[in-house]
């Protein structure tokens, strides 16, 4: 079969797969960005040793363990402690001063995956003396990843590798102060975990659950198509207090979204915006 025809067939099968997953498990990937979704599905097929999308659908519907692996494949993007160190610097420079004025601070980290970036924010707040009056709500659609994040245990070698990021992000102390080493693992100290609240939440299917002073949703919406992005922006806007801050990934934007006019830029390069309307 010509590659073009093969792809047309694959498109039909993919639509059926997404519909099947939604009906069986309630996860809605139907409005995910097609190019990256296709790559992830094909990778999944390879790992499961299957040669058609239909075969993957078959397995997904009948084998929940396979579905868990599929969900993981669609959940993870690259993450690290203080990933994009400049973002944390910008957060310190433009957002922290706003938070100092508040009696308490509620932050939503949407799409937290395995939690590294949440712990990074916790460390930043700690060093700025804001942690005790803050609560970070960290959510993700994947409960396996959430559990990992909640435990706060990471490979020691990997953690040590993050020291450089911590310094470049403006870290004022010693990164190793924040964790204890046990055998090959690094465990975040309990005092860093007390104000972190982990919960399952799906940006596509779930509603707003609170109002926040800060919402971070970084490099999550790149996996959504434009229509879904607009719906999620609606959700985020609704969950943000007036004068609240929204943080996106460095190559994401509010441009051409329905809420573009309701925000002003705090940092145009690191995509920090404040709600003004």
């Amino acid at each position: 079969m010509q590659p073009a025809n093969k792809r047309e067939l694959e498109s039909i099968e993919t639509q059926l797969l997404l519909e099947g997953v939604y009906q069986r498990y309630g996860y809605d990937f139907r409005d995910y960005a097609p190019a990256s979704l296709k790559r992830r599905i094909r990778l999944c097929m390879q790992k499961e040793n299957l040669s058609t999308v239909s075969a993957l659908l078959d397995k997904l519907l009948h084998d929940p363990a396979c579905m868990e692996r599929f969900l993981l494949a669609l959940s993870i993007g690259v993450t690290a402690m203080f990933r994009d160190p400049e973002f944390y610097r910008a957060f310190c420079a433009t957002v922290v001063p706003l938070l100092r004025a508040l009696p308490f601070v509620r932050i939503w980290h949407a799409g937290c995956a395995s939690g590294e970036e949440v712990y990074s924010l916790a460390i930043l707040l700690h060093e700025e003396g804001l942690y005790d009056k803050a609560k970070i709500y960290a959510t993700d659609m994947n409960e396996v990843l959430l559990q990992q994040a909640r435990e706060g245990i990471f490979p020691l070698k990997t953690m040590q590798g993050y020291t450089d990021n911590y310094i470049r992000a403006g870290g004022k102390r010693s990164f190793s102060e924040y964790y204890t080493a046990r055998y090959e693992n690094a465990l975040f100290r309990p005092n860093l975990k007390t104000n972190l609240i982990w919960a399952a939440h799906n940006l596509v299917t779930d509603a707003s659950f609170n109002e926040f002073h800060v919402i971070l949703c970084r490099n999550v919406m790149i996996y959504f198509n434009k229509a879904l992005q607009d719906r999620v922006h609606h959700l985020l806007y609704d969950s943000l207090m007036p004068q609240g801050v929204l943080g996106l990934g460095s190559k994401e934007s509010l441009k051409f979204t329905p809420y573009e006019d309701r925000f002003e830029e705090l940092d145009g390069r690191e995509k920090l915006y404040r709600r003004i309307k």
Partner: protein
Amino acid sequence: MGYELVVIGASKGGMRALQVVLGALPAGFPTPVAVALHREKGSGEGLAALLRKSTPLVVTEPEDKEAIRPGHIYLAPPDYHLLVEGTYFALSIDELVEYARPSVNVLFESAAEACRKGLIGVILTGENQDGARGLVAVKAYGGLAAAQDPTTSEAPSCRRPPSPQFPTRRSCRWR
């Protein structure tokens, strides 16, 4: 035939050739160009600024869902994969492909599916395997595939005889 898009891929060793290729494009060049160049995670504005010196065309790093327009050279941002989706760019932060992010394979494969015969894919030699599969995809969908003659690469480790997994109609010498 009117081409929709030119995609260029380069790993370490391809920078000079990239400047030469971009420099050869005239001011009114009608086809958008997208480049996946292997680059350091933290590499900032410097690369785009450097390339701007080689060309009158507009050099930018696209944002997610940005429209692909003629007169532009789009440079894949550091630590993201750049994909083509219809007439827009899309980004991802998926795993490294052939140890690279941005990956040439990812750009080329998505562009091949989106543009098919309307695609020109060019590989500039570098140190890395990333791009071989991408170029195969370009050809498979009817696009035009080209690769730099690896003996002219600027990185000594990349100078080697042309390798069989780059199935091109033409192998070009860049000055």
